[in-house]
């Protein structure tokens, strides 16, 4: 199954975070973070390991992912690959926070105001540049209705 930006996905089809952002929020023009690129590259790695991509194609797409500036450009890189291939690799904590935030249709500034931190700090956490303190991690997890382990743990998994 594949999804092409600009079309509707098949029922039950799993999408990556950049694809969700492009599809549901029409915000494909938003700038991609390191965490977004890493997630796309994880999908590409899984596809390469399963033989869905030849080495040349894999290397070319990784290069495209690194060079991608927006969610729309990232979504194109993984558009013909099923995102569920990475089901065994839960998203990293920064991607999880971004995912939870976008699900609630909150801007980074709005989340920052709720958490009592600056917008720049939310950006840093989502891009993986800053690991929050334990009190802030608890605040973030409680806000999203998850445990700290699920939110920030290496094997955590974002709930609904």
């Amino acid at each position, binding site marked *: 199954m594949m999804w092409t930006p600009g079309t509707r996905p098949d029922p039950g089809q799993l999408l990556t975070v950049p694809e969700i952002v492009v599809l549901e929020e029409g915000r494909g023009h938003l700038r991609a973070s390191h965490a977004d690129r890493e997630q796309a590259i994880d999908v590409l790695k899984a596809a390469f390991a399963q033989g869905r991509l030849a080495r040349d194609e894999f290397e070319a797409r990784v290069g495209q992912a690194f060079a991608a500036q927006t969610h729309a450009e990232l979504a194109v890189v993984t558009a013909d690959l099923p995102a569920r291939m990475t089901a065994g690799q839960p998203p990293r904590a920064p991607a999880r926070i971004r995912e939870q935030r976008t699900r609630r249709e909150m801007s980074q500034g709005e989340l920052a105001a709720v958490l009592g931190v*600056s917008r720049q700090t939310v950006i840093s956490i989502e891009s993986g540049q800053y690991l929050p*303190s334990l009190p802030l991690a608890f605040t973030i997890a409680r806000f999203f209705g998850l445990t700290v382990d699920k939110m920030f743990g290496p094997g955590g998994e974002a709930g609904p």
Partner: protein
Amino acid sequence: MTAFIRPRLRKPLRIALAGTVFAAAWAFRGGGAWQLSVAMEVTVLVGAVTTYVRAGEDNDEGALTGSRADERQKLLSLRSRALGWNFAMVAAFIGVTAGVAVKAAWWWPFLVILAVTGFAYLLGLSNYGVAEEGTADDVDTGHQTRSRSTPDRA
């Protein structure tokens, strides 16, 4: 102590106060130094106003200047200060070494800076808990404490 002052005003006021005291010192010196003192005061006031404007910006620097920094921004500030002190210590060491080498009379202020920064570092270690390690909680269990790197002889 400054809680009654608006956060955005705290640093500009601090700058203005420190600059005014320094300018007053030049005025107190007497002679023609009062002109320098006036120029210094004007510069300080311009600096304070600039700081106030920058304190309103929506970025890390603005948050720090406006005394509304969160934990990450405070950490940034702490790291930057530590880097600044490291540079100061290296510069002071170079200064005292060069001063001694050329038999200059100005070597001792550098030594004072080195001594003060070194003492402040030790004070920090003491103040923030290194000297309060306490007793290991397994001391009364009868187990022999050993390093993790010790090979298991069992």
